[in-house]
């Protein structure tokens, strides 16, 4: 029997993959199916789930409302549509800003001497090791009305005798954007660096020999060849930003509502898991669509494991 096992590729492979499958099916696929089932259910009086089939939760998300100010039986309430659009927009803004900041730095590192590269990369990773929540907290101290930034601005204005009143930066959409950019910047730097580092120097030489100026070389050689890194980075930034609720919760002061906050509240404060499940499915479908089209257009390789 042992001999048989030795020769059977199929069984050996299955034995090795079995524990992984147990976790992936038990704690990913079954929960996703359960979330789908719950999203079609109704909330019970004590915040539990009544399993039926109703599209009410989805209708609500897309703006169907039965509590109207004008007394009509039903009307369009843009509340949840707005939240979704806002989240999508913020994720887009964050991604673009992060690319703009990450690219020059990644380029700088990729064109350093091999020995220095390790140090510079290490310097990108250090902020990542301070905890996510702690990093949000740091921005809280900086942006507060009596915080570091206002203090510095005040001191600066004082030097030139300009009257200065500290202004509120914390708990604004801008604070949320800054926080998001800060949180996810390293996730863009590393994949871009990985793809830039692979570009052979002879390609730059060829471009120069053929008469391309530096700017043209950047746009015709460097950028196209580093696209896999940008794509991988975008996926690593866009998806988490869409679903994060900590940054908006703390830096937005619960005034900036994103899909993540909506879902979290349904499960903890509002106690409507069915509505929360529907919202999280919509979120998942949106990110999957974006990822699918984005990777199909550009493709990404091993850069995704650069982090």
């Amino acid at each position, binding site marked *: 029997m042992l001999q048989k096992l*030795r020769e059977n*590729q*199929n*069984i050996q*492979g*299955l034995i*090795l*993959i079995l*524990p*992984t*499958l147990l*976790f*992936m099916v038990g704690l*990913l*696929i079954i*929960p*996703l199916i*359960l979330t789908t089932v*719950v999203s079609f259910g109704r909330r019970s009086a004590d915040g539990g789930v009544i399993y039926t089939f109703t599209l009410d939760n989805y209708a609500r998300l897309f703006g169907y409302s039965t509590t109207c100010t004008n007394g009509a039986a039903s009307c369009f309430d843009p509340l949840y549509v707005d939240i979704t659009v806002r989240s999508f927009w913020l994720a887009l803004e964050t991604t673009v800003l992060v690319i703009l900041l990450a690219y020059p*730095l990644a*380029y*700088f590192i990729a*064109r350093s*001497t091999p020995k220095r590269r390790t140090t510079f990369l290490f*310097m990108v990773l*250090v*902020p*990542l*090791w*301070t*905890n*996510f*929540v*702690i*990093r949000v*907290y*740091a921005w*809280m*101290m*900086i942006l507060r009305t009596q915080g570091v930034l206002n*203090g510095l601005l005040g001191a600066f204005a004082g030097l030139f005798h300009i009257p200065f009143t500290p202004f509120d930066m914390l708990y604004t959409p801008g604070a949320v954007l800054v926080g998001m950019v*800060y949180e996810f*910047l390293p996730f863009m730097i590393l994949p871009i660096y990985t793809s830039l580092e692979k570009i052979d120097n002879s390609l*730059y030489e060829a471009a120069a020999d053929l008469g391309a100026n530096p700017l043209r070389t950047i746009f015709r050689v460097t950028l196209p060849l580093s696209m896999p890194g940008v794509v991988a980075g975008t996926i690593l930034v866009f998806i988490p930003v*869409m*679903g*994060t*609720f900590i940054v908006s919760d703390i830096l937005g002061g619960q005034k900036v509502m994103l899909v*993540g906050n909506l*879902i*979290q509240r349904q*499960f903890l404060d509002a106690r409507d*898991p069915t509505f929360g499940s529907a919202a*999280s499915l919509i*979120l*998942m479908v949106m*990110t*999957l669509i974006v990822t699918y089209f984005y990777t199909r257009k550009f493709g990404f390789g091993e850069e*995704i*494991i650069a982090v």
Partner: protein
Amino acid sequence: MNPYRRSLFVKVMTFLVYFFLYAPIIVLITYSFNASRTNIVFAGFITQFGPLQMSGTTVVQSPCGPFHWFCELAKNREVMNAARNTLTIAFTSTISATVIGTMAALALQRYNFRLKAFSELSLYIPIVIPEIVMGIGILTLFSQLFTFFNNVLNLTGSARLGMGLATVIVSHITFSIPFVTMVVRARLQGFDKSFEEAAMDLGANELVTFWRVTLPMLMPGVLSGALMAFTLSLDDFVITFFTNGPGSTTLPIYVFGLLRKIITPQVNALSTVWILVVFTVVLALQWLQGRESRSQKAWK
């Protein structure tokens, strides 16, 4: 042409981005020596030992001097509990995920079996879905299961099943496995099979070959996979947020709870300790890795 040429624009941008990355951390560390109880304004560094006038009117005994907030931190039992939980979760989930993920990498890279395509696909899920979706999915699963069993088995009091360390650990194992698998697989792809063939030719059986040849050669991949799993677990907030229960609070969850109340410089002291510990660990690992590759070169 000089391959290391970089324009002034790139250099200036690089400097600014590094500044942007580090300024918050410097602020964080500076404030952990703040001579103010409320951490809103920086009231200067704590300079003296003994009775200490905090801004506000209270006089505090501060035998630790400048490290007042670090001593307060060490006395804080909630923090110490949270730290213990964080480490328990990180170590348990890292070890499990590393073993399971390495097995999966071997299976996917070397064997043909039914369910292979399905397995590969399932490993992509945690990467392409937002964490919160996974978090609430697991929360729903466990809360439904626990309610069911508590009712069926008529469990009462402390026997009732609920969220806790176990639910957090299995969730962390789940999101770590794909990353370990990816890293180990990448290492397996550049693997020279002739070493294993040589071992088999010399009479070693499959098991001996695996222990003495394959695993040692895979070790760098396995270790970086483990390091990745460990940092993912330490850093995780979202999944832990939805799967923890009373008594399984981790440091990130504890800090998040504080941020909605009054914050003392204790949180900064905690952050400073955190940064120092992680920094030291990673430097030590880098040094070990460097030493290993140097000794390998010498051996060759």
